């Protein structure tokens, strides 16, 4: 762990200002990262921060649109995955790429088999010796003849690493390698990784788990919005808060919003179970209240939103609106009962691409803007003229196709769609301002505040700490599908961050 303090050692892999654009969208806007031999380098970031794009570039699966990429000081550009493997960059993914019906030996030579001549490369005693040495390097004691399908998951993970090491491996890239392992297997893997680093391999370790990263890594790079916001900082000098703030966004001072005092209970979830074997969750939201819900990716926070909106079946338990049991409860029933829902992925789940902003907005109130079977274009337009103005839709051209608006304005249209629902009682918003510019964010926040003043109950599911702490009356912390804590109004972003990362 002394490499960082003594940077005399040359970086084996240097990434400078790497950018990647997919069409008009920028996946990476500028990433800097240096990997040193003998160092475990952690890479962190929320989903969508650009981790997977960076990995795809490193392994030669896609080419960067800008920036430089040096291996042992020489500028390189990979045209394919096999280029990267030849150069000694070995990726290990969370989904294994072993051949389950072949033996351990055959698997260790599967890269060579791909390019071998008539005879398979794993014949002969020399090949067996090399294979045994590779297994020993990762501390794996299995027979070479054993079929991979008979190995435990942890053993397979180690075998995959052994296969990579058998080639010349200068950079080992591990993407969430412990995701499918139990605690014991994970510890063993981390030990092997430390051992490999001691041998001089440069290791890039991608994970969400901060405790694991503290155990194994020397330095950390954090990506947010396609940019490296922390760049090779020594982990021992970096606090959990700093990491979380870097991952989720800045923790600004809480802006005081004029929030109303909550009234009567509007929605009550009782003993709601969302996944088989999951823990039941119970909570209530009152009129004029903003209930914040936060959890890391995969924590089950988004699923709670889906269930409240009727977009996901609940396995047991109940949802009551105004004291009335909502059952059966489809998304359609929910709209009729006045439950709005802004989904997390606006392109997949929200937008009608080739349609105007207006017909995108009116999708939930077609009945209201129709007479008998016919649409009333004037009524449709009138229903949104004030709302679009309040949200500062820019340009304010309701007939313009939705795809010609910026992400922030598309999001405003989705918010408008839900605010317009007849008899709106409850508004469920999931990441309402993700990937949205500051102006649109303010307007959407204003709309949420206005909704609470109109007596609507708001459930705000977000990983944006500033958004959460400035709007929520109460905040539920969700982990493993369970509500683990409830924080009061005016909690600081730091309190929330700490509560999220607390160990059970």
């Amino acid at each position, binding site marked *: 762990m002394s490499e960082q303090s003594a940077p005399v050692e040359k970086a084996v892999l240097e990434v400078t200002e790497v950018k990647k654009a997919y069409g008009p969208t920028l996946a990476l806007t500028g990433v800097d990262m240096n990997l040193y031999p003998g160092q475990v380098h952690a890479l962190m970031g929320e989903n969508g921060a650009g981790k997977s794009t960076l990995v795809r570039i490193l392994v030669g699966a896609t080419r960067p649109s800008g920036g430089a990429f040096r291996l042992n000081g020489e500028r390189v550009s990979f045209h394919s995955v096999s280029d990267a493997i030849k150069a000694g960059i070995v990726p290990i993914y969370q989904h294994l790429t072993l051949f389950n019906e072949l033996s351990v030996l055959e698997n260790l030579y599967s890269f060579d088999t791909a390019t071998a001549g008539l005879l398979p490369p794993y014949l002969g005693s020399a090949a067996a010796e090399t294979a045994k040495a590779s297994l020993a390097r990762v501390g794996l004691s299995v027979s070479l003849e054993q079929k991979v399908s008979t190995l435990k998951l942890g053993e397979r993970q180690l075998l995959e690493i052994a296969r990579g090491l058998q080639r010349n491996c200068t950079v080992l890239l591990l993407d969430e390698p412990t995701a499918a392992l139990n605690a014991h297997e994970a510890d063993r893997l981390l030990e092997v990784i430390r051992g490999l680093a001691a041998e001089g391999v440069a290791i890039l370790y991608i994970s969400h788990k901060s405790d694991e990263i503290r155990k194994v890594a020397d330095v950390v790079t954090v990506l947010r919005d396609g940019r490296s916001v922390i760049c090779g900082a020594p982990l021992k000098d970096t606090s959990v808060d700093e990491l979380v703030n870097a991952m989720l966004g800045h923790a600004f001072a809480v802006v005081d919003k004029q929030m109303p005092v909550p009234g009567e209970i509007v929605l009550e979830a009782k003993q709601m179970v969302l996944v088989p074997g999951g823990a039941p969750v119970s909570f209530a939201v009152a009129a004029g209240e903003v209930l914040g819900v936060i959890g890391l990716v995969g924590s089950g926070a988004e699923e709670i939103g889906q269930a409240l909106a009727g977009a996901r079946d609940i396995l047991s338990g109940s949802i009551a609106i105004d004291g009335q049991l909502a059952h059966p409860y489809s*998304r359609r029933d929910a709209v009729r009962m006045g439950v709005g829902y802004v989904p997390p992925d606006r392109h997949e789940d929200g937008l*009608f*691409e080739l349609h105007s902003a207006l017909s995108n907005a009116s999708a939930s109130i*077609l009945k209201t803007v129709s007479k008998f*079977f016919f649409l009333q274009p004037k009524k449709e337009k009138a229903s949104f003229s004030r709302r679009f103005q309040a949200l500062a839709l820019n340009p304010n051209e309701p*007939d313009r196709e939705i795809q010609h608006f910026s992400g922030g304005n598309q999001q405003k249209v989705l918010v408008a769609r839900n605010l317009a629902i007849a008899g709106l009682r409850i508004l469920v918003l999931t990441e309402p301002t993700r990937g949205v510019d500051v102006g649109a964010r303010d307007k959407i926040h204003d709309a949420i505040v206005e909704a609470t003043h109109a007596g609507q109950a708001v459930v705000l599911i977000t990983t944006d700490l500033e958004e959460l702490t400035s709007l929520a009356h109460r905040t539920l912390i969700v982990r493993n599908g369970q509500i683990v804590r409830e924080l009061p109004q005016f909690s600081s972003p730091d309190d929330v961050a700490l509560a999220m990362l607390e160990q059970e």
Partner: protein
Amino acid sequence: MADSPGYIGRLRMVPKSLWVLVVQFAVFSLLVPNFFAVSNFENILRVSSILMLASLGQAIVIILAGVEFSVGSAVALCSIVAVFAVQSVSVPMAFAAGFVIVLVIGAINGTLIAYAKLPPFLATLAMLMLVHGVASLAVGGLPIEAPVSESFYWMGRGKAFGIPVPILLAAFGLVVHYILLSKTTFGRQIYLVGSNERAAHLSGIAVNRIKFLGYVAAAGFVAVSGLILTSRVASGQPNLIPNLPFETISACAVGGLSLAGGRGSTLQVLVGVLIIAMLNNSIVLLNLPTAFQLAVLGFVIIAAVVFQTTPDRFSFLSMRAAFAQKTKPQGDA
């Protein structure tokens, strides 16, 4: 408040396929003998009315991001049912029976696709075979003739107000189709479901019901097309018009509908059908072998679709706009 599209903008809103039609019409008028004649125009419209109505149905399904392969079999069974029925009931009742059988096939397609969640391609392909099999079994493989009757012939061969009845029916179909798609709530829901089914569901639209009703509505147009054909040939035939599914899909594609769903207009269907009808008509006028027809049709589909999906920068109007931009004096700041 809304920006007025302006001259260029308004021209842009015209489907590109209309330009194909205009050019084709001009070229054929000049080069194909006997093409430019009122009697020939009437002939084109009369002959194309069957394809027109069936394509209007196909278009609804395509906008729903589906496809309908069983239209040909449905029309064949329609003819057989109508000819069987007319032996025991009146002509209107017999035609009503033919109409209903097509609606039933549409309802089965709709059920399979909307509720049993079968892919439209598979469901309607299976229905093509199933209905064709039923139609063949019903008549033992051979055509059955309708008894000679003026009223049976009226729909396919008759005239009203001096205009052939098939043309009037096709025109009526176009108007109904236009109103259905662009003026009704149901039409809007068809577009939204075709554009993004998940978003439609989350907006509270009854996605399954809209899909089901969409297939039934499509069958309504196909049924009228089937009755015109039945009346014209005055017989029930299991192999009446096997190419109808492909011709209707071609007409929609040539007209400019996106086969991915979510967009398309009645005008585009009209244009697509007329392009194909004028082509077939000219091949006959030029005394070319009918085998020629299929080859040319294939070529035209490719050409028309390539032309329409080519990026705007290659189109005439954008070139003009780009030219205007370039020749504009530089800013004086």
